[in-house]
């Protein structure tokens, strides 16, 4: 538990608040000092922490894999190349298993989604207070900010903006390839003439549009929900550390158990996101 004199409720709220930089109606472009201010900024605000970690992890992933790709030998793979090739092989198998069309973007897309989501989820395993406290210290020391008003949420995939951002990316690709492969008419026909034939067009449209739009939403919400719940449980466990020695010891055992269990969730969610991305794109490529 970070600092003295705040209640558990405040602690949790503080942990679930993003560091927001945006256009405040009164203060102009600024970092939000409170959750209310962040809300008042409306749409034109950025979660600096989410974006920072998300970009940072993606860049790290990119350069790690790029370094292997540059030196990849066809001989006996060594060390890190082994690991990278294992992932590539795994992703490639998944794509071949689920994607029947022929499109060079799908496999790299699946790899990006898998590795990125996995890394973002992995941030969940870092004890919940470490990075926010470091951010508070840095904010207070170098920028003269009130540590209580420095918010820092480390796990990007617990930010719905991030998960929706990725899901929307997948959604645009789905729309793009649906129209590219089937043509506007074909795509519209798919939405309008099924499942009840031409006579039931309005009903078809409603049904198919719902099912179409539910794809990115479910994709984003599934990841967000799982990670958010996991994060919240970590925060709740962290509260136990301030409630006496016995509770603290019990809490650390709980944290260890939950972290081990969470490794499974992290990988599973990354895998599900990747698989669904592949499947959705496969659907976009299939003509009925």
């Amino acid at each position: 538990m970070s600092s003295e004199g705040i209640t558990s409720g405040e602690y949790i709220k503080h942990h679930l608040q993003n560091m927001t930089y945006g256009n405040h109606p009164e203060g102009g472009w600024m970092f939000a000092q409170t959750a209310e201010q962040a809300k008042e900024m409306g749409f034109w605000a950025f979660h600096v922490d989410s974006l920072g970690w998300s970009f940072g992890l993606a860049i790290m992933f990119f350069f790690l894999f790029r370094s292997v790709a540059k030196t990849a030998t066809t001989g006996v793979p060594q060390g890190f190349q082994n690991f990278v090739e294992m992932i590539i092989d795994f992703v490639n198998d998944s794509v071949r298993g689920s994607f029947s069309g022929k499109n060079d973007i799908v496999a790299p897309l699946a790899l990006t989604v898998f590795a990125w989501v996995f890394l973002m989820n992995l941030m969940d395993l870092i004890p919940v207070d470490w990075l926010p406290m470091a951010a508070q210290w840095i904010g207070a020391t170098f920028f003269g900010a009130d540590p209580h008003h420095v918010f820092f949420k480390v796990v990007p995939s617990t930010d719905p903006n991030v998960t929706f951002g990725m899901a929307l990316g997948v959604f645009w690709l789905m729309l793009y390839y649906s129209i590219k492969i089937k043509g506007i008419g074909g795509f519209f026909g798919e939405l309008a003439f099924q499942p009840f034939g031409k006579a039931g067009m309005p009903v078809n449209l409603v049904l198919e549009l719902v099912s179409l739009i539910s794809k990115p939403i479910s994709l984003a919400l599934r990841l967000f929900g799982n990670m958010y719940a996991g994060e919240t449980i970590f925060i709740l466990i962290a509260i136990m550390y301030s409630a006496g020695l016995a509770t603290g010891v019990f809490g650390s055992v709980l944290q260890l158990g939950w972290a081990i269990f969470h490794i499974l969730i992290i990988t599973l969610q990354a895998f599900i996101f990747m698989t669904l991305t592949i499947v959705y794109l496969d659907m976009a490529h299939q003509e009925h």
Partner: protein
Amino acid sequence: MNINATLIGQSIAFFVFVWFVMKYVWPPLIAALDERKKTIADGLAAAERGQHEQELAEKAAAEHIKEAKDQASDIVTQAQKRASEIVEEAKDSAKEEAGRVKTAAEAEIEQEINRAKEALRQQVAGIAMAGAAKVLNREVDESAHSAIVDDMITQI
């Protein structure tokens, strides 16, 4: 928890990273993987071919050995046959030679005997004539009695 422009930032980053990965990460890695796969497959195929060839070679070698053995035993049999033939021939020629020598010897003996007989007969005839001349002394007509004397000689 607010939905805000982070969404747009993340979407843009998403496309940028997908594009980067598609351009710089995926192709070289998958090419390396595919090439290694091919190398391994080729190696396995070559190994299998080698094994097959070895089997064939072993079979051929066994055949060669069998042939050689057959030939060797043929040669041995022939040699044995030839040897016994030679022995047989030698025996025959020896027998023949022996026969010939024997006949020659017999013929010679016969001749000797005949000659001896002849000589003996002449001597006997002379002795007989001398005896008869002594006995009869004068009136023996050689020509009249030679028939009788000859007859006597053949009887000896």
